[in-house]
Structure formats: C-alpha cells, structure tokens
C-alpha cells in the first residue's frame, strides 16, 4: 500500500485530536525490532557469563552457543536502525560527528565497543587454541581460513593457553557491565524523551535491561534445544533445568520492576495518566494485558514456579521449556512493541489517538523486520559450522 494512502487511512481513524504532524508514525516495526535484537544479544551474553564468571558449571554446554548466538544477533543489531533512516547512506555521520548531548549518538560507539572488544575478543580467545589445531588438521581453503582467523599465531603452548584463559575471563568480567551498558543505553534512548510520558521514566533502562536478560535466556534455551534436536544429540537436562531456574528468577525481577513502574504511574496519576489509561485499556489491551503480561510473563512464571517444586519426566519438561521459551520471546517482543508503538499512538496533546497496524504483506518495514529476525539464525548456523563448540578440545 502506498505510504500516502495509508496515511489517509490513518487520518480517517484518528480518535479525538492529535497534532497534524502526528498522523505519520515515525518509528515503526523496525524500531521495535531494534531494542528486541539488542536485548537478545545482551541477555545471551549474560547467560554465557553466568557460566564463566559466576562459575555455574551446569551451564557449560550452552556457553559457546550463547556467545555465538549473541554474535549472530549483534551483527544485524544495527540493521533495523540503518534501514529505517530517511537517509540510510548518511549513517556514518553518527560516528564522524557524534553529538554527545544526544542519547542516540553514542550507540555506534557502545555497539562497536561491545562487538569488537567484548564479543569478538571473548570468542577469539575461547577458540584460539582450537582454531590453531583446526588449521593444522584441515586442508585446502579452510586451512587458510582458520589460519587467518588465528591471525597467523600458531602458539599452542600451555602458557599461551593460560593467557587465553586469563584474558578471556577478564573480558567476560568487563563484558557484564558492557552488556548492561548496551541495553541499559537502549532503554535510555526512550527513557530520555521528556516529551513522551509513556517513555519518560527513570525505570526504562532498568526495565529494558531485565527484559533483555529474560529474552536472551529464553532465546538460548530455545536455540540449545533446537541445535541438539537438529544434531540428534541428547539434551543435557541439568543445563536446561538450570537455564529454567535463572529464567524464573530474572522473570520475577523483571515483572516486579515493570509492575513497580506501572503502580507508580497509576498512583502518581499525573497529567498524562488519563490518556495513558485509555491507551492501555484500548489500543494496547491485547498486546499489553494478554500477550505481554499474560502469555509473556504470568504463564511462564507459573509454569517455571511449578517446575521448581515438581519434576515431570524429561519429555514433558522439554515440551514445557520449548513452549515457555517461545512464549517469553513473543511476550518480550510485544513488550518492545508496546513501548515503541504504544508511545506513538497517543497524541502529545493528550487529546487523542492515531492508529497503527503492521501488515507483513503490504508494509515493507514490517516484512524487513521479520527478515532481520530470521537472518541471525542463518548466521548462527554458519558460525556453528565454522566454530563447532562440540569439536572443541576440552581443557
């Protein structure tokens, strides 16, 4: 559908009064996808560091998968942002002349720091020894690919492995605050907009951070089961139960924080409260109460709580975990949706609403967001082929 035509349709659906420039919804599905993908990265990384830094041994089987999954999503994390720009080819200006009073300007640097210094380095140190071995075993092109990946270092001495281990550990320690920074920062981009009462809350970075952890953990839970199923390997139920346990804890924290934010909003009931109440009970009813809170939070919470006390058979638990991980992933996606789209549905005049309907068939932006969510899975498949965690030599 033509953009102008869809705007005329939106104009006919305006309820109450909105500023005339507000009919066009500037941040659409792509910007929903952006915090969602970054959140998955931060969450997956934090799960990996639970194993490495907090020494939770049960999570060992998911360590490399978490890191590689974080990397695959990280590689596309900026794509929705860049595609969404009115002038995509000018994106480099954000790195060349960053305006430091803007909450958005630093994203490029936070992103580069996280990608180059944290994720790539940690994976590199973790795989360096194995890549040297693989470069000696393989023949033809792959030999040189691995050689290049090791940066032509063929040192396999115990000392060098010790150095890898030490630096790797250090990077993970640095990585945890970096992951917090990455996603807390994304929350701040929204939380810093004082013009928009639905976004403007100090809690935003914290809420984004915890929902990021929830979604990242659920993603690894899902990916770990999927990879094991495709490789026809037995799933380590202990690892899965441990992930489930952490998902449960962090989900509780996330839900508490989000409730606190909403309770504060309801109790304080400032000038924006009336319009936000209508918004939440009206246009956001399904996505907020039913999907985000019901499917995405309460059902997984209840099920996970049940699993803390009762242990059904492995088969049943696998089905439960698979379902719950998808529920949580959908729930957090709609949490982003409710924030990004919800924040633009009501007028800053507080007198009315515009409308938004994503349609994958007509709307190229919605279609692209879907593609951007699928692409990382292919990147992950490639990375798992290039750097198979199951062929690593255990230390």
């Amino acid at each position: 559908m033509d953009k102008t035509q869809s705007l005329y349709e939106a104009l006919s659906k305006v309820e109450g009064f909105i500023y005339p420039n507000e009919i066009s919804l500037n941040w659409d599905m792509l910007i929903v996808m952006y915090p969602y993908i970054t959140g998955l990265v931060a969450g997956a990384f934090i799960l990996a560091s639970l194993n490495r830094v907090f020494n939770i041994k049960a999570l060992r089987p998911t360590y490399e998968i978490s890191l590689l999954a974080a990397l695959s999503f990280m590689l596309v994390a900026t794509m929705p942002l860049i595609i969404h720009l009115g002038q995509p080819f000018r994106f480099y200006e954000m790195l060349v002349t960053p305006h430091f009073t803007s909450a958005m300007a630093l994203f490029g640097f936070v992103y580069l720091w996280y990608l180059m210094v944290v994720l790539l380095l940690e994976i590199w140190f973790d795989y360096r020894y194995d890549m040297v071995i693989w470069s000696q075993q393989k023949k033809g092109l792959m030999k040189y690919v691995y050689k290049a990946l090791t940066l032509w270092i063929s040192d396999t001495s115990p000392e060098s492995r010790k150095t890898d281990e030490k630096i790797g550990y250090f990077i993970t320690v640095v990585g945890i605050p970096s992951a917090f920074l990455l996603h807390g920062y994304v929350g701040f981009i929204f939380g810093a907009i004082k013009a928009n009462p639905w976004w403007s809350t100090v809690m935003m970075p914290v809420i984004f951070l915890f929902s990021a952890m929830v979604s990242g953990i659920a993603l690894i839970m899902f990916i770990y089961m999927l990879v094991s199923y495709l490789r026809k390997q037995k799933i380590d139920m202990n690892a899965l139960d441990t992930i489930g346990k952490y998902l449960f804890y962090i989900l509780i924290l996330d839900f508490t924080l989000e409730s606190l934010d909403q309770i504060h909003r309801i109790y304080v009931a400032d000038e924006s409260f009336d319009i936000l109440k209508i918004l939440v009970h009206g246009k956001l009813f399904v996505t907020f109460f039913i999907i985000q809170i019901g499917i995405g939070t309460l059902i997984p919470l209840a099920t996970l709580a049940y699993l803390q006390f009762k242990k059904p058979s492995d088969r049943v638990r696998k089905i439960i975990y698979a379902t719950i991980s998808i529920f949580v992933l959908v729930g957090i996606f709609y949490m982003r949706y409710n924030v990004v789209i919800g924040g633009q549905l009501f007028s800053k005049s507080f007198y009315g609403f515009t409308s938004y309907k994503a349609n994958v068939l007509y709307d190229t932006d919605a279609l692209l967001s879907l593609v951007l969510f699928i692409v990382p899975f292919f990147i992950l498949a490639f990375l798992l082929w290039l750097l198979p965690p199951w062929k690593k030599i255990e230390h």
Partner: protein
Amino acid sequence: MALENKNLSRQEFLKKLGLFAGGVVFVSTINPLKMVFATEKPKNGKWYGIAIDIEKCIGCGSCARSCKIENDVSQEPFYFRNWVEQYTITNEHEIKVSSPNGGIDGFEQPVPDEDIYKTFFVPKMCNHCSDSPCTQVCPVGASFDSPEGIVLVDQTYCIGCGYCVQACPYGCRYIDPLKGVADKCTLCSHRLEKGLDPACMMICPTHARIYGDLNNKNSEVSLFLKEHNCAVLKPHLNTHSKLFYNDLNQEVH
C-alpha cells in the same frame, strides 16, 4: 639476560604508551572532535522570540496556507510547519479540539452556540525553544540552534532518524516524505535575511503574530510581552520556549 629482556619490553611498552598518548592528543586537536554542548546565548546579538495574540486570531488559516507555499511544504494534510487549532469547551466541560487540514480549509464549529462555554483558536508553530529538546537529541548535529536563537535543520546533513520528531513536545516537526529528512519552521530565516517578515507573520490579516528581538527591550515583541500577560506551552518541560501566547487557556496543550 632475563633482566635485560624485561627492560627492553618495558621500553617498548613505554614507547607504545607514548605513541598512544600522542595519538590521543593528536586526535583531540582535530576540530570535529571538540565537544560542543550548546550554543552560547549571545548577549548583544539578536535573540528571536515570537508572540501570538489568541484574542486576535480569527482562524482563517492564512498563516498555515502561506507557510506551505513559501517553504514548499507537501500539500498532503500530514505535514505542517504551522497550523491552527480550534478549541471548544462545552458547558459540560468537554474539551473538543480540531484542526482539519491544519485549518487551511477553514473551521466548522462542532457545538451549537448555546452549548458552548468558551471557544477560541490557537495558532501553533515551532516554539524555537532556548533549550530545545529536539536539538539536544540530534545524534549528528544536523539540527541546531542558530546564533540568533532559531532552531534549524541542515537538510543536507540530516540522517532522518526521527529522534527529534519524537523529542519535540509540541509536534512541530515531521519527516519530509520526499527528502527523507526532518523538516520544521525556520522562522523564514531566508526572509529575515532579506529584511522581510516571516510569511505567516506578514500574511496574518489581524496581526495576531508578532516576532522580534528579545534582547532589544524596545522591539515590538518585547513591548508586547511587557504589556500583556503571556504564557508558554507546557512550561513544566522546561524547554524555555520563546513562543509566548497572550490569553492562553490552561486547556491548551
């Protein structure tokens, strides 16, 4: 031997450290990396402000119409640099606001006269805030406050991220559908340059719109502000708006 080796690597380390420090100093001298937080408000130069007299606005929409023509704004009813709103408060204290096509095609009163408690028009345009939330959030420095206090967009540099559109509390910005960049009122700075009034100010048949230098206490706008009890929109957001309304009702957002 081992000692020497250690010394050598220390030397090397210091050398690298020196190089790194030198590099940092070099980089920081390059002009574009200098951090600029806000334009300094000049003490003696011009500092533009606007005053709108709601008592004089007849809702003809001439301002919105002339602005679109003067600045080549899309004629579609979704993009406005300025527009007029009609507020009607009924006896039941129901607030009805409308701005069909920004007021360009005129207004209809939705409430019969006997049910009206009060009603008035409010022309809207960029507030040219002193502490603009929109220029604060521009990630690349494409949106800025000019030395004369006009909030402008450098359309050859704007990346079209839309962050400023989200940050403006007054809904005064939009993304130009053809250029893919942010667009907004420039206070017709191309006209000011040539000594002409902004199109909306010049065309207003009742002279409800005034602009001028706030630093000059004898300018028309300064005198108007002195004589009338004026207010800005959304003062709690602390944007230090320079668009002042005479006779502003609290219902206006």
